[in-house]
């Protein structure tokens, strides 16, 4: 039965042994020699120390290609030309689905053809030694970034391979990523991973863990993201994790983003045990990007400016080629440097913005309400509570594809561009808070001369890629813009005119 309790040593060892047999490379992932290996690494490779001791936000990109030498070269490039402080290794999709055989075929094809036949680095297939070669080949600490619901074997191999940070979590790598993975089972899998990190930690190798804060990446209300981060943090802490980086994805409203990052840090420190070092990571806009590098640079610029104001411990940067998928290494490095320039130019300025406290209070109050619901649903057990809360809809994530969540919640921006909740489903939030959101959305509805509806959601989802923050009714609907548009629209049937 699922419980938020530390996995006993013998169970850890037993499960670990069984998992290592799932793929030949598991054999080399021996814990004692891994400890010795970590101890042999220079202090500059200590991810947790580097992150926790920084006095400015550290920058980290995303990057993963199939072959070891290409991945080495890519990371060196991002270090040298992008000035990344922390490096990533993004894992391929097959590995995320535990399809190691497919990943193996992809890797072999990549080696033969020289093409990137996988969308990431298949670390399980590469095995412990290759991971260590990668760790040694670059100067900065590296994190495993993926999106794997059952990442146990990936964790066993990459941690033995010298990585000291591991992204993901049972909710954040289930609810936004898959349809059918059972949440209860995913939690058990991540309890194992956190327990493994705890075992390293106990031996003096503090593995940094980073739940994935942006969730579905699309207008996620900060309170929901923060509640999920705290739950994942609590589950990890129980298993012995002592370095936790809680995440949050930019929504694009400066006040709300700064307030959310402060609330995240505040609640993280409040809810997590004192012996856990809590840091925060800010993800530059994870939603749709403009199909234009110049405009994309504007989005990245706002991300950098927000990071400068909010001072998270880490920033995951985007590239100007975000729209078209995986960026070139040059574009990836450019995103890092644009962000750096903004942070460095703004870092020493004292910019105190009004109203952040008030927004932070609203976020914290809502997040507490969701966390209370989780504890209530589990009779005090956060593991059982979170499963039950997602099941009842008391905790919910907008646009969640997972069958484990109701996904009844729909967000929309208010008249100031802050993300509010339009449809509540069964979210465990009291009427007073709901009234605040409703009032703010009504304000927007009045401004736009339309009623609150899913159309706002649809418009908001596309707004930033269309060059705005808020999805206001378009000019062709309100007839206020110059010609041209109308002409362009004549060959569309069933256009907006028809539909209204």
């Amino acid at each position: 039965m699922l419980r938020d309790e530390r996995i006993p040593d013998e169970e850890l060892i037993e499960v670990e042994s069984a998992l290592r047999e799932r793929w030949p490379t598991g054999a080399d992932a021996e814990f004692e020699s891994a400890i010795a290996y970590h101890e042999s690494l220079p202090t500059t490779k200590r991810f947790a120390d580097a992150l926790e001791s920084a006095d400015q936000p550290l920058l980290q990109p995303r990057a993963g290609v199939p072959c070891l030498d290409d991945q080495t070269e890519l990371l060196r490039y991002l270090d040298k030309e992008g000035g990344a402080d922390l490096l990533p290794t993004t894992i391929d999709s097959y590995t995320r689905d535990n399809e190691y055989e497919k990943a193996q075929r992809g890797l072999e094809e990549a080696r033969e053809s020289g093409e990137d036949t996988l969308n990431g680095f298949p670390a399980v297939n590469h095995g412990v030694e290759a991971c260590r070669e990668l760790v040694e080949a670059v100067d900065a600490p590296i994190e495993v970034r993926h999106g794997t619901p059952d990442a146990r074997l990936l964790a066993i191999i990459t941690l033995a391979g010298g990585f000291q940070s591991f992204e993901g979590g049972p909710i954040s790598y289930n609810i936004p990523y898959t349809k059918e993975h059972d949440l209860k089972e995913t939690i058990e899998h991540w309890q194992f991973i956190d327990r493994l990190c705890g075992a390293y930690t106990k031996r003096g190798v503090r593995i940094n863990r980073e739940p994935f804060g942006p969730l579905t990446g699309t207008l996620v209300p900060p309170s929901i993201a923060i509640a999920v981060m705290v739950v994942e943090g609590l589950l990890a802490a129980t298993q012995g994790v002592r370095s936790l980086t809680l995440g949050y994805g930019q929504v694009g409203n400066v006040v709300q983003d700064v307030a959310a990052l402060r609330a995240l840090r505040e609640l993280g420190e409040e809810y997590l045990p004192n012996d856990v070092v809590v840091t925060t990571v800010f993800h530059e806009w994870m939603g749709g990007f403009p199909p234009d590098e110049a405009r994309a640079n504007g989005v990245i610029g706002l991300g950098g400016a927000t990071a400068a104001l909010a001072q998270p411990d880490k920033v995951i940067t985007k590239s100007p080629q975000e729209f078209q998928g995986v960026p070139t290494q040059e574009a990836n490095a450019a995103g890092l440097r644009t962000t750096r320039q903004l942070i460095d130019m703004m870092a020493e300025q004292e910019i105190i913005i009004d109203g952040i406290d008030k927004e932070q209070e609203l976020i914290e109050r809502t997040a507490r309400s969701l966390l209370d619901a989780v504890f209530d649903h589990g009779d005090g057990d956060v593991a059982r509570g979170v499963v039950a809360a997602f099941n009842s809809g008391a905790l919910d994530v907008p646009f969640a594809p997972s069958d484990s969540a109701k996904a009844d919640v729909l967000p929309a921006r208010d008249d100031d561009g802050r993300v509010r909740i339009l449809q509540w489903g069964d979210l465990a939030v009291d009427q007073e808070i709901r009234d605040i959101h409703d009032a703010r959305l009504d304000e927007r509805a009045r401004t736009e001369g339309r009623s609150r509806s899913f159309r706002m959601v649809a418009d908001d989802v596309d707004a930033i890629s269309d060059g705005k923050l808020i999805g206001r009714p378009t000019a062709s609907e309100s007839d206020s813009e110059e010609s041209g548009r109308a002409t362009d629209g004549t060959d569309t049937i069933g256009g907006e005119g028809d539909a209204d």
Partner: protein
Amino acid sequence: MGQTVILGVIGSDAHVVGITILEQALSAAGFDVKNLGVQTSKDEFVSAAQKHDTGAVLVSSLYGHARQDCQGLHKQLADTECDAVTYIGGNLSVGQDDWDDTREHFRELGFNRVFDAETDPSAVVSALERDLDHRTAEPETQRVRMNS
């Protein structure tokens, strides 16, 4: 109105935002929507269509593998004597393929209408209203851009 519409993301694709919004738009327009969600197999589409005697099957795909994922879908629908209109929309090809070719390809597969990823949900609603009320009208495919 009140006709049943099946909606889902085909294959192992997990992009949920588009169908979530489309579901809302169709419901608001009075359709009875069965949202099969993401990662829906061909078989699941077919059996849902059969079960609900559906008027339309709306397939979404955003991860670039729609060609493979839809292979044989119309044959299976025909085998169950389902005469629903079928739409597909999303990022329907990998890379920079020409849209006309892409549309033509999916028309040949049997889709009545083909939409790109920039399509406004209201355009789908209007098309459905048209196709389900006026089944004699000649089916068309077109590209509708929301903001250009």
